[in-house]
């Protein structure tokens, strides 16, 4: 019992002192997951919008596929990216394995289906409302998709956020492609896993606090932005 409360105390001290090692790990986590989420949004949002308004062969199977891929196991994504980037793999010559770039790639792959599937839902809802008006004004499907993405920008922040939440919290993919190398690819989740198994609970707990705080505060900001946007734009 004492060890646990001691651990809590040390953890708080680490957070309060903005310990350099802790800060480095937190910043790398944020950087990797943020870039991965941005890439996932750039790819996933247009894909989701076209799935909502488009009419092309294979649309329905694709919708089912993307919905299914929302539950993609991170370790499997990690393994696939590992195979791609390993020395013997097709992209092995780029030497990206065990680098933050590899982690970004893995998380972007993990998160893109989530962003695409949630975007499709949001855009499909407004498409049923806007469809006739947009067609009447002469908007083609691509133009309609772009208009609906812009119009749903505040609702879509939720999709981006769900993606970011998934990225920052996952451990399997970054562990495999990043290798959890101290000072290079060690992020919050991999450190928590490692330190816990080593028995160094204070650092693991401190990172756990930070992780929860990051996720909560980002959700709080997004909630506030949506509320503001709804009052502002209806």
């Amino acid at each position, binding site marked *: 019992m004492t060890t646990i409360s001691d651990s809590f105390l040390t953890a708080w001290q680490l957070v309060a002192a903005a310990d350099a090692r802790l800060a480095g790990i937190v910043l790398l986590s944020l950087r990797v997951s943020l870039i991965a989420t941005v890439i996932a949004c750039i790819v996933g949002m247009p894909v989701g919008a076209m799935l909502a308004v488009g009419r092309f062969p294979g649309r329905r199977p694709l919708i089912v596929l993307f919905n299914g891929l929302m539950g993609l196991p991170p370790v499997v994504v990690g393994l696939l990216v590992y195979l791609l980037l390993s020395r013997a793999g097709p992209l092995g010559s780029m030497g990206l394995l065990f680098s933050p770039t590899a982690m970004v790639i893995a998380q972007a792959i993990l998160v893109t289906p989530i962003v695409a599937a949630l975007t499709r839902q949001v855009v499909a809802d407004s498409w049923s409302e806007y469809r006739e008006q*947009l067609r009447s004004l002469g908007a083609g499907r691509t*133009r309609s998709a772009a*208009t609906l993405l812009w*119009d749903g920008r505040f609702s879509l922040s939720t999709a981006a956020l769900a993606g970011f939440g998934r990225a920052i919290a996952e451990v399997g993919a970054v562990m495999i492609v990043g290798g959890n190398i101290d000072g290079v690819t060690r992020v919050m989740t991999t450190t928590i896993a490692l330190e816990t198994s080593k028995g160094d609970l204070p650092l693991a707990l401190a990172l756990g606090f930070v992780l929860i705080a990051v996720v909560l505060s980002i959700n709080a900001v997004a909630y506030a932005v949506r509320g503001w*946007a709804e009052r502002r*734009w*209806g």
Partner: protein
Amino acid sequence: MSAWLSIENLGLTEGATRIIDSATLTLSAQRNVVLGPNGAGKSTLLRLIHGLLHPSAGQIRWPKLLSQAMVFQRPVMLRTTALANVEYGLKLKGHGAAERARRASDSLARVGLELIADRPARLLSGGEQQRVALARAWALEPELLILDEPTASLDPASSREVERIINEIAASGTRILMTTHNLGQAKRIAEEIVFIDRGRIVEQTAVEQFFTLPQTEAAQRFLQEETP
């Protein structure tokens, strides 16, 4: 005005239901109002003419292709200002930024909304939103304006304002084709009434005659039921 639209044996079936049943119609008046009971196919006819629906039979002929705009029962506003909503229609037609801004503000002024141009469109009242929708259509300077029950969800004051705007648009030379549930409104706006019942065009009569001496029994019955 000579005939600007002729429809021949137009049909639309959905499953086993004939929503529009071999409709044949020639429109040559400038202001046309389609009347008929609920579910008669009025909105569907308008959507077929506007090209939002594809007929399963028959033909729609335009002696001269007319530029069109449509105003719906429920105005669809984008999450931006009233002005930007009007500009959006012009943007899709490929007008440049300066031209868009000028025409959009002119159009908003003509519907009496110049003071709320910068307000978020979705927070306006239903009547104001419908006037923005009219401004958006009017800014395109269409040769034909189609309106599907434009005042059905509005209070009487807003309805009168919308009606005034429709009359002004008509006065600028635009052809009008609309549906309404409001017989008084139909009387005030129409030159010619098209009466439709169960997907069939039953009669097409000049407005004075339709309201005093409708030619068909179906129209007589409809007027009796609708007149309080």
